[in-house]
């Protein structure tokens, strides 16, 4: 048995992953202690491969040796495991259905896992199959509006920008004048979306897209979320994210 397998709560994660950050925020909201383990996505640990044999991806929450995979699944697990504090889903079935719908929309439309993980777990720089895999992702419904903004150029990037703005307008419509997506209570939809706000700076720098201009309500919402300790401690500095994006662009020869 690998070291640390039965040790309380362990989160296998990667520092810049918005999906991992969702889990960190949920655990912090519940005030639950856990061990954070940084994975090298180019050299995945035996524990990660054993805990998520189907997808081999982070994040994975291992609870006394039992693995839970996929970020929104993990967040719901955390909510159900510690129901006595900081509820992340409302009590009413209709409100819960709305929360699940919008969290699922964020998952499908803002920055789908396959694109991100594809990008970070690609083996060596300049691999020819990268572009084939990337095209596969665009074709089979995996719109990666955010990722496309800094990966693409010219007309393709303009298309991506347009798509990005449409999705954010949709989300602003749902947010309205509420404090959070769930109303007064910070919850599942906020947790699903807020990690991507650390990428706003990168989208602006790479694609000349001003989120202040195009999605002012979301920008204000993001600031309110950052006032919560669970969020401010879990999200990276946007400048560090931008450094990471620049590194990836260099590695893959984009621009």
């Amino acid at each position, binding site marked *: 048995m690998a070291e640390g397998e039965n040790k309380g709560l362990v989160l296998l994660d990667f520092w810049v992953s918005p999906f991992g950050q969702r889990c960190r925020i949920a655990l912090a909201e519940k005030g639950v202690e856990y061990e954070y383990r940084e994975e090298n996505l180019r050299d995945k640990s035996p524990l990660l491969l054993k805990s998520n044999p189907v997808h081999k991806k982070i994040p994975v929450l291992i609870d006394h040796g039992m693995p*839970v*995979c996929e970020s929104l*699944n993990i967040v*719901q697990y955390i909510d*159900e495991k510690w129901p006595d504090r900081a509820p992340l889903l409302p009590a009413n*079935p209709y409100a819960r*259905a709305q929360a*699940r*719908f919008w969290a699922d929309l964020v998952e499908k439309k803002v920055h789908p896992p396959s694109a991100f993980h594809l990008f970070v777990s690609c083996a060596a720089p300049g691999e020819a199959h990268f572009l084939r895999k990337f095209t596969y992702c665009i074709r089979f419904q995996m719109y990666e509006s955010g990722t496309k903004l800094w990966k693409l150029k010219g007309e*393709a990037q303009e298309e991506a920008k347009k798509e990005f703005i449409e999705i954010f307008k949709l989300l602003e419509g749902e947010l309205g004048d509420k404090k959070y997506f769930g109303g007064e209570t910070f919850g599942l939809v906020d947790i699903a979306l807020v990690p991507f706000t650390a990428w706003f700076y990168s989208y602006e720098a790479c694609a000349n897209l001003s989120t202040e201009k195009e999605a002012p309500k979301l920008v204000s919402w993001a600031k309110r979320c950052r006032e919560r300790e669970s969020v401010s401690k879990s999200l990276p500095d946007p400048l560090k994210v931008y450094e990471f994006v620049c590194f990836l662009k260099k590695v893959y020869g984009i621009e």
Partner: protein
Amino acid sequence: MDQPPSSVKLLGSWADSHTHRVQLALKLKGLEFEYQEEDFINPSPALLLHNPVYKKVPALLHGGRSIVESVVILQYIDETWTDNPIMPADPFERAVIRFWCHFTDDKLAPAVGLVFSSSGEGQKAAVDQVHENLKLLERELKDGAFKGRRFFGGDKIGLLDIVLGCGSYWLAVFEEVMEVKLIDPESFPVFHAWLRDFEEQQEVKETIPAIDRLLEYARGIRQMMLSLSNSSSSSINNAAASSG
């Protein structure tokens, strides 16, 4: 909690597996509901009103409000009418069920769809992908999280049975229409046995359309998809070239 039965209405399409999921769940809960057939190509004003984001079936209308996305609807049904639960109570077991529901919709279903919409080498690769996905489910049924169970939900049909089962009939349909081997009982004995058992359940028989209708429907759609895929693959190649 009891709700007046006549307050439930489902907008769906007869050949849509996501609609079948909701119909089956409502039947398993013993709920009466009104059904409105929607045309896939021309959504009604009601559907556009109740599902403005995706404009698709199914949409469940209850108490003057709408719920969309089949897995969201199933959980709503389970949490509103709490008799005969379709989700387990334990948080870890619930997480396992949600994981495999997501796998079904994110990996298996698209691969099955690709078998249907492609040809030649592309189709062969898609068939291999379906087999890879079925192997994972077979392993889970045989030795993993669902070992020894009659259904994924235990002794009774649960949420994952509904999600996986309503759609798995396409495997047999596509086998015949496409002349490919997708769900060979020798390669996937446990999955095959589960599917046969699922399809024998009374509520399932009342929900899934007759195989002849599905075959005819699939043949028609296949023609349409082939012509679409020929025109879209050239535009994908153009997009790839301009983004490279």
